[in-house]
């Protein structure tokens, strides 16, 4: 069963009088439970594609259906509510709020649910346990290493139990060893918890953890590999 369905999606950006075609007529289907790596040179449109799938951006043309929802034409308010339920985001620079403890950071998406304070805290602790940071719940991001911060970010991404994790260069700022740990964690989430993962990366070793790899070049999908 497909969970992501893109049909003839184009995305143009206008800068002044110049129009830049970042994505050109893309068709893409991703099956539920897949772990897909998106590779390609800088400027090939990887992040733009990711943003479209994650419901952060709207295409210039085409149709995008994710988790059973047509995203094209949704209001920003509807999109936000949809993201909260269906998507977990993981960024290269973690994007944690520096003023909040790890637990409070993880708890953020739960503020959008009807859960009570106690339940939110328990769920956040479960997510932190899954990423192996139960003992760092009270630490602030500044007191954690890069790898630990990325784990907190992953915990935040999964805490509301979304079906899809969208990762933009999740290991781009980490050393090899730490990067492998993070990738193992993502694999675990994919295999054991059934999360569909779409990951943009520059790193072929990172891509090797995925089930599939997709190459983007100048706005076109050029090759699909097993």
């Amino acid at each position, binding site marked *: 069963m497909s969970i992501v369905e893109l049909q003839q999606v184009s995305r143009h950006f206008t800068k002044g009088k110049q129009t830049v075609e970042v994505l050109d007529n893309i068709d893409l289907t991703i099956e539920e439970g897949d772990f897909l790596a998106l590779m390609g040179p800088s400027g090939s449109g990887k992040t733009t594609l990711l943003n479209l799938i994650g419901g*952060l951006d709207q295409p210039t043309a085409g149709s995008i259906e994710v988790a059973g929802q047509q995203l094209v034409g949704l209001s920003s*308010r509807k999109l*936000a509510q949809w993201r909260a339920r269906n998507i977990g985001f993981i*960024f290269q620079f973690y*994007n944690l709020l*520096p003023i*909040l403890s790890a637990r409070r950071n993880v708890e*953020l998406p739960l503020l959008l649910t009807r859960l009570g304070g106690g339940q*939110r805290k328990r769920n956040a602790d479960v997510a932190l346990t899954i990423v192996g940071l139960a003992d760092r719940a009270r630490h602030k991001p500044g007191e954690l290493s890069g790898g630990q911060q990325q784990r907190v970010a992953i915990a*935040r991404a999964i805490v509301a139990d979304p079906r899809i994790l969208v990762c933009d260069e999740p290991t781009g700022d980490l050393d090899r060893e730490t990067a492998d740990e993070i990738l193992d964690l993502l694999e675990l989430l994919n295999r054991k918890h059934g999360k569909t993962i779409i990951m943009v990366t520059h790193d072929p070793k990172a891509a090797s953890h995925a089930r599939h790899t997709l190459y983007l070049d100048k706005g076109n999908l050029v090759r699909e590999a097993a």
Partner: protein
Amino acid sequence: MKSFPLIWSNLFRRRVRTFLTLFSIVAAFLLFGLLRSIAGAFEMGVNVAGVDRLMVSPKYSMVDGLPISHLAQIEAVEGVDTATHMTWFGGTYQNPINFFPKFPVQPRFYFDMYSEYIIDPLQLDEFERIRTAAVASAELAEEFGWQIGDRIPIEGDIWLRGDGSNLWEFELVGTYRVGDEDTDFPSFLFNYEYFDEARVPETQGIVSNFMVRVSDPDQAAEVSARIDAQFENSINPTRTATEEEANRQFAAQVGDIGLIMNSILSAVFFTILLLTANTMTQALRERIPELAVLKTLGFTDRRVAFLVLLESVLLCGIGGAIGIALSGIALQALGPELEGFLGQIEISAATTLSGVGIALLLGVIVGLNPALSARRLQVVEALRK
């Protein structure tokens, strides 16, 4: 208020900046509390006024005085329940700086008229019985350390004694309070009968005002008109108004204190508005990527805007509350110093409420623009930076 910890943490992200801003707001509302209370002290007479009381004054000037013979005629006017009188004594106790109003009155009738003044019935009996007796508001007695039985010398200026002296001496036989603490009013009352007998014979029989209680407060205007009509063609015509109106007219003689206070406060609030707005804009600018992250997590535009707005409302609200609390404390401390010439000053519930209201409004005004920017923030662009 699930987001409260988030807002709270954001507020104290830059402690120094937040505290400096907070202190400015505190200073503004400290001034608000003080100035409104001082203005309130000038207007206080207006508030103590009873709804069913009229004040009969000389038509042409309050310094003229009216003959005591008017009293019986006023009592006979239709719609008048009871009437009594008082006289402005002037006079000095020890030093001109010890200013407080002193009135010769009819003891029994006076306390009957001002039923909100509470006095021990035994002390009232003494007041009526002893010729040279006087009573003081408890506040005043406390201020000068008077005890029951003390002899209190007052130097007369308007009213001189028939024996050629201008030294009046009274015996303190009691103190009284105003039922509602907020409206206590320092004054010193003594026996009219003694006053009248002792003053220069040519000046005997003259009083300053008559106070009238009407049977039906709704008829106040009609009764006033009837009283004035009664004396219109006498050589001592009157002007009758509700106590409230009379007090307001007297307060207006000083000038528009309220206007002066409000002008100053406008200057203060304009300054604080600019300062706080600047802080909130700075705070927002630093936080744009984080707000974008919240949006990716599924926080709606409106919710993010609301978070920013609430932060500003919270900052201003806290500052306002502290400032007004401080002004209350300052008035407690300064009270005895200021009461000499302004009467009782206290921060009223109305001042407190309007202060908090203004603080919250300030928060909304200041936070509105940053909140709207936060709402417009485009996730994709903000994250790219």
